[in-house]
């Protein structure tokens, strides 16, 4: 129902200090579930509050469907943006019943009271709280309060729903359930969801697109699969989940692929990250990035391929759905590997290590 265009958005809270958000450009399409992902203090909540109109930008603009709502000179106040927002602490008003909480936005819009009752009832049905109209928030569980907050925001049929870490106060089981409910709700209502979280698993599970933000700067914007498998830089790669970095040297570059040799002799053809910097030239030292589930282990033996990477098992952890091994390879690098639980090695076993080159990326080494 609504498209958000953010251009050159900058906000610093203290004059001269590092910006909370710096020169953000983001195009959020209609009817999307978009997540702003990053560690705490990265600027993602500031961005959300800028979209809501609670914060005035220092530079840049926010437009919805082509209409500029925020700029450094003028900000349309939150109450005239027609958005919805769900807060981390739900912010369900403790002095109002469930019905009164949900009806509030309709009253603010001067909806006739005859219509309010019906819309509130339908919304309660939608979030599974029918029959709870007269309860006070103090009589509800955390998950139920969460649904009241959702219902309250959705009943006014906003074009955009902003969600600020809405699941972080729920326990793990409930969080998982609410996750799928949220996704379902977004599909059913067609509202554009802008969702803030620091939990990458949540972001991967929910989003159509993820905007990874770090240090106030947008690092990458794309579908979950792309952000996970083709991280734009070392920071994103690290933030999206466990990953190994192996010292590697580039042998040759051609187009989007590079021929590299990993310390220990293994040669691979790997994908270069988009807009790879000039440092990734022939002959330069780089790090090969590979996620634990994309590493394969095999017993070393006579059928070993020439040039294969060999290592020794240093640690084993049984995770239930997988075995996690730490293998020490050439040069002392400790490699984290996840295998099917049926594949078993003991500490001290010699193994050969193989990678799926299509799941590997190279980055310039850290701290250089």
């Amino acid at each position: 129902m609504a498209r958000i265009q953010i251009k050159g958005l900058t906000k610093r809270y203290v004059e001269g200090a590092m910006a909370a958000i710096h020169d953000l450009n983001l195009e959020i399409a209609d009817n999307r579930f978009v997540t702003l992902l990053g560690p705490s203090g990265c600027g993602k909540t500031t961005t959300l509050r800028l979209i809501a109109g609670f914060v005035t930008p220092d530079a840049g603009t926010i437009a919805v469907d082509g209409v500029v709502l925020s700029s450094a000179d003028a900000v349309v106040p939150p109450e005239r943006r027609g958005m919805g927002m769900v807060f981390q602490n739900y912010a369900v008003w403790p002095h109002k019943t469930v019905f009164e909480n949900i009806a509030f936005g309709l009253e603010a819009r001067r909806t006739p009271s005859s219509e309010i009752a019906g819309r509130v009832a339908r919304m309660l049905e939608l979030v599974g709280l029918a029959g709870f109209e007269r309860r006070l928030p103090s009589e509800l569980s955390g998950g139920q309060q969460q649904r009241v907050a959702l219902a309250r925001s959705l009943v006014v049929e906003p074009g955009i729903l902003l969600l600020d870490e809405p699941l972080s106060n729920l326990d793990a089981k409930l969080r998982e359930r609410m996750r799928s409910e949220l996704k379902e709700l977004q599909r059913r209502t067609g509202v554009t969801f802008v969702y803030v979280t620091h939990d990458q698993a949540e972001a991967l599970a929910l989003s159509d697109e993820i905007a990874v933000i770090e240090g106030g700067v947008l690092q990458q914007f794309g579908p979950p699969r792309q952000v996970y498998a083709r991280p734009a830089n070392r920071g994103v790669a690290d933030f999206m989940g466990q990953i190994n970095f192996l010292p590697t040297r580039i042998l040759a570059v051609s187009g989007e692929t590079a021929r590299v040799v990993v310390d220990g002799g293994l040669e691979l053809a790997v994908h270069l990250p988009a807009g790879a910097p000039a440092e990734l030239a022939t002959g330069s030292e780089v790090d090969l990035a590979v996620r634990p589930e994309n590493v394969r282990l095999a017993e070393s033996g006579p059928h070993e391929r020439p040039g294969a990477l060999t290592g020794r098992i240093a640690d084993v952890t049984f995770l239930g759905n997988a075995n996690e091994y730490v293998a020490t390879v050439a040069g002392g690098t400790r490699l984290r590997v996840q295998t099917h639980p049926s594949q078993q090695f003991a500490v001290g076993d010699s193994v050969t290590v193989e990678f799926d080159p299509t799941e590997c990326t190279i980055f310039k080494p850290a701290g250089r």
Partner: protein
Amino acid sequence: MAGAAAALVVLVVLPLASLFVSSVRGEGGFSFEHFQRVAERRLYYQALINSLVLGAWTGLFSLLIGLPLAWAVARTNTPGQGFLKLTASLSYLTPPFLTAIAYVDLFGPNSGLLNKFVRDTLDLPFLVFNIFSMSGLVLVTVLHTFPFVYLLAVSALESVDASYEESAQILGAGTWRTALQITAPLVAPAVLSGTLLAFVNAIALFGSQAIIGIPGRIYTLPTRIYALFDYPPQHGLAAALSLVFVAITVLALVLQRAYLARRSYVILGGKGSRPQRIDLGRWRWAVFGFGVLVFIVAIAAPYFALITTSLVKSVGLSFFDNFTLVHYRFVLFEYDVTQRAIVNSLLLASVAATLAVLIGGIIGWIDLRTTAWGRKLLDYISLVPLGLPGIVMAVALIQFWLATPFPLYGTLLILLLAYVARYIPLGVRAANAALRQVDGSLEESARILGASWGMTVRRITFPLIRSGLLAGWVLVFVPAIQELSASILLFSSSSITVAVAVYNLYETGYVEPVAALAIINMIIIALAVWFADAFGRAAGPRPSTMQ
């Protein structure tokens, strides 16, 4: 914003400025002659010394009474916890000048009831206690100030997380070692801070210092400043002496804040479990006995003296042959001065409480919810009156308004200004505490759902802080209905208040009507507290999600 700032300027900044100006204005322009006289003449510096001595002893004894009671209530299985809490609250609520009058009835050197009893009936004249002495003054004052130590100590003791103490115990420390090495250092800042508050409040009390100090020739800063307004008034000297007074008060409050700031680590464990209570065994009855003793001295004895005095035809005759309600009839229905005083006090206290909370609410809201320029300054200025003893506030207001063309002196309005100015800090604190309970997101949710600023305040903010504001209202009403320290310099026969009437009647020797009026004063206070409690509960359950 502008309104709140203007109110603070008129109520606090300008009067205080005129106090500074008149303290350095001599016969021939700018001079320090007033301060010089304060330093040179025994009349004045002795008052300063007496005030400090009074404050020091009062602080010490407040600590010796308040801390054990707090510990008993917060940490032990002493019986009668409710009774101990009640003792502390009643002591705090009882106007100190009433306690002083009651103790004069009991321990006046010649005619005090208990003195007569030990001298004439028991024939033990060496047990006669002269209340008109420094020890008498300390006794009467402590009964009002020990709750400051008690309240801060209880809240500190209750907020120490049990895990701090349990960690010590699991490492092998016994109950007493844990109490001394872990708990005591954690609560020490709060306890010291309470002691300093007791000091500051003790030296500011005009009523008890006039009633007990003046007959005993113990002049203190408030009574000496008061005497400077006898004809011809010496404004410059009064201003200089007032500023010396302010300096001591502010110094003590700065220390107090510093101690309180160090208290923050106690709150860290806020979510943890309550500490276990120490089983005192047989000793718990000794601790309880201590509480009963405090109750007798602080509550039972003075109220017994006042109530019996108010109900007999004349003091000294037997109670039952002598029972009468004539004094109540006199002060309520016959004597126009006391009637007027009651009406004035009710009016002043209600309006002052409303204004203090209103201004406090606006200042608190600006401070917490906006980014307006100067909001911190506004907040600081609103706390300034804490450092101004009542009589100093009166001196400042007199000097400021006499210099303007407005004939405010002697009107109800100047009393109202004094009360609002004195109690604005209470209003600000109450509003601040209430607003802090309301997370900003509760208001933001309303805004994003389309509510205007006005609708948000009306429908969300105000209902949520209402009970907090009401508590603040009572917090101002109670001291305002018994205010004497500032009123004593500001009243006229038409703007007389209950406390001033009590003091004047006492001065003229109307012992029985004074007692009746005092009891009426206490009934008004009790009604206000009861009303707040009942209304506060009716306002709905305190929602748990409000943190």
